[in-house]
């Protein structure tokens, strides 16, 4: 089995993010592998362990995205490739999906392409479904568990997390999946993995290497703003007993007209 997994480098979820003169700042918070993508890497690795094969990890971004790739290598991916080109500076979701799909095709013979649910910076959550559409492969989004996989018969059965619970779906490989947190905790990079990753050569594929022109961005983000400050009057409710506090609190909540 040949598995491709895609990761993004993002500011840590604990970062305080602000914008000034159109420039986003996350202070001194570290850049990390997108938390959702760690589940995707976990899924890719566990599939390779169970059914044989290896995992190639890709990231689209600047040179610094190599850190996210190294994290995935340290978790156990066999090789990493950076997708990077100055012409991708203002790429939109469909452009990202186009580049990722072309990378999957260039790698060749991929059975499963795995994505995280969404990136915690742009929060779009559409890349996996878009890539599936471009490739003409089934889109198995929001996979919570893989119930069956038969590499010889090229069939897969997954449980998808939907609003109403789980939808259990059969599909033929190759397929694109996105993975949700229910899949299970991602493994920590091992000491040996970290050593291997630190020495790894990470090649870069440019648009010329992929043989495609820069995708035209249809979506533009002309303005970023800090959300309005939350105006709230804090009131600490006190009383002589839990019952007294609770009674007062219940009356106050009802008076707000939200029930």
């Amino acid at each position, binding site marked *: 089995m040949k598995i491709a997994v895609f990761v993004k480098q993002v*500011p840590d979820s604990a970062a305080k993010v602000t914008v000034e003169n159109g420039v986003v700042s996350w202070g001194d918070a570290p850049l990390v592998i997108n*938390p959702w993508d760690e589940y995707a890497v976990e899924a890719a690795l566990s599939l390779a362990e169970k059914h044989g094969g290896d995992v190639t990890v890709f990231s689209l971004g600047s040179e610094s995205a190599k850190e996210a790739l190294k994290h995935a290598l340290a978790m156990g991916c066999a090789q990493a490739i950076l997708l990077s080109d100055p012409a991708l500076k203002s790429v939109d979701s469909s452009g990202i999906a186009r580049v990722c799909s072309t990378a999957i095709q260039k790698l060749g013979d991929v059975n499963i392409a795995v994505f995280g649910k969404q990136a915690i910076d742009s929060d779009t959550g559409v890349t996996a479904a878009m890539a599936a559409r471009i490739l003409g492969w089934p889109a198995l989004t929001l996979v919570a568990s893989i119930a069956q996989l038969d590499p010889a018969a090229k069939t897969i059965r997954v449980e998808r*997390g939907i609003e109403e619970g789980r939808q259990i779906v059969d599909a033929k490989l190759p397929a694109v999946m996105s993975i949700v947190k229910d899949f299970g905790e991602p493994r920590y990079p091992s000491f040996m993995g970290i050593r291997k990753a630190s020495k790894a050569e990470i090649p870069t594929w440019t648009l010329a290497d992929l043989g495609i022109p820069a995708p035209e961005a249809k979506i533009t983000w002309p303005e*970023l703003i800090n*959300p309005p400050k939350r105006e709230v009057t804090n009131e600490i*409710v006190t009383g002589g007993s*839990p019952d007294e*506090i609770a009674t007062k609190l219940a009356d106050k909540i009802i008076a707000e007209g939200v*029930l």
Partner: protein
Amino acid sequence: MPGKIFVYIDHFKGKPLPASWEVVSAARKIAGEMGSWVSALVFGQGVESIAQPAFHYGADEVLLADDSSLADYRAEPYAALISKLAKDTHPEAVLFTTSTRGRELAAMAAIDLDTGVIPDVIEIKHEGGKFTATRPIYAGKLLAKVTCSTKPTLLTLRVRAFGKPVEDASRTGAITKVSPVLTADQIPTKVVDYATTEGRVSLGDAAVIVSGGRGLSNNPSLQPPAEITDEKQKEIWRAQQGFKMLGELAGVLGAAVGASRAAVDAGYIPYPHQVGQTGKVVSPDLYIASGISGAIQHLAGMRTAKVIVAINKDADAPIFKLARFGVVGDLYEIIPALTKAFKERLHK
């Protein structure tokens, strides 16, 4: 005259998501401003009854695809049909609710139609022949204004961000039947089964959420059964009793139960309950946070709630800064008393 506004009506087994009506209502408003009209897309099997409420909430016509190949929701046949209908009639925009289905359908149709998708928007303006949408990024730590240079613009609307849908029972419209694009054997997936969790209020569209955090395990007086000997398991058992207690309050308020990432990661409650940047971003009318200190990633997921109530032992917990009402105290004393107080007042 501008083209129509398409609205995809999201439903599960023929039961429309309430959020679908928010989208129809929002589309009605935008169409009114633009001099356009609203076309609702209803796909499934035996789903004609969905047309009537669609008219009531603001659709001018319903494009109905009623076919056995559409009985189970599947992305490929649904996206193919949306794309075909859009190619035939050139709508200005296609609107979806931000649901698991809406998001992937919008993504796939965007590729088919060679256009852009703007997911999870909280505001839409139509100016100079173009839509500008506002959407939260970094889980709401920032807002982005986004435009699309191509038509149709595909947008998914955040649940509860566009106000209560307006119903007018006198409205009617025409139903036009349309046929699926893919034949049964062209569809690459097959739905085997469902494991549904019906009866529970889902976090995404809940008006009231009662949430718990690490503090729920902090009740030494609760004695786990003798067969649980492991300390970690004892802690989880205690927290689970705490979530049961929150569940009772939620029951009285018709609320959904939420949780912090810390509580989910500690194994107290399954992941679908997680509120925050790596869980669900919610915007209820009332959010009761108990035993949650308020890490930045949690606050990002609930800061737009109308009224926030915090119950925590630690008076310095950051959650209190966002809270309209706070109680510094033991949630194991306050929550049951609060449940009782609401029972009396709401006559339940």
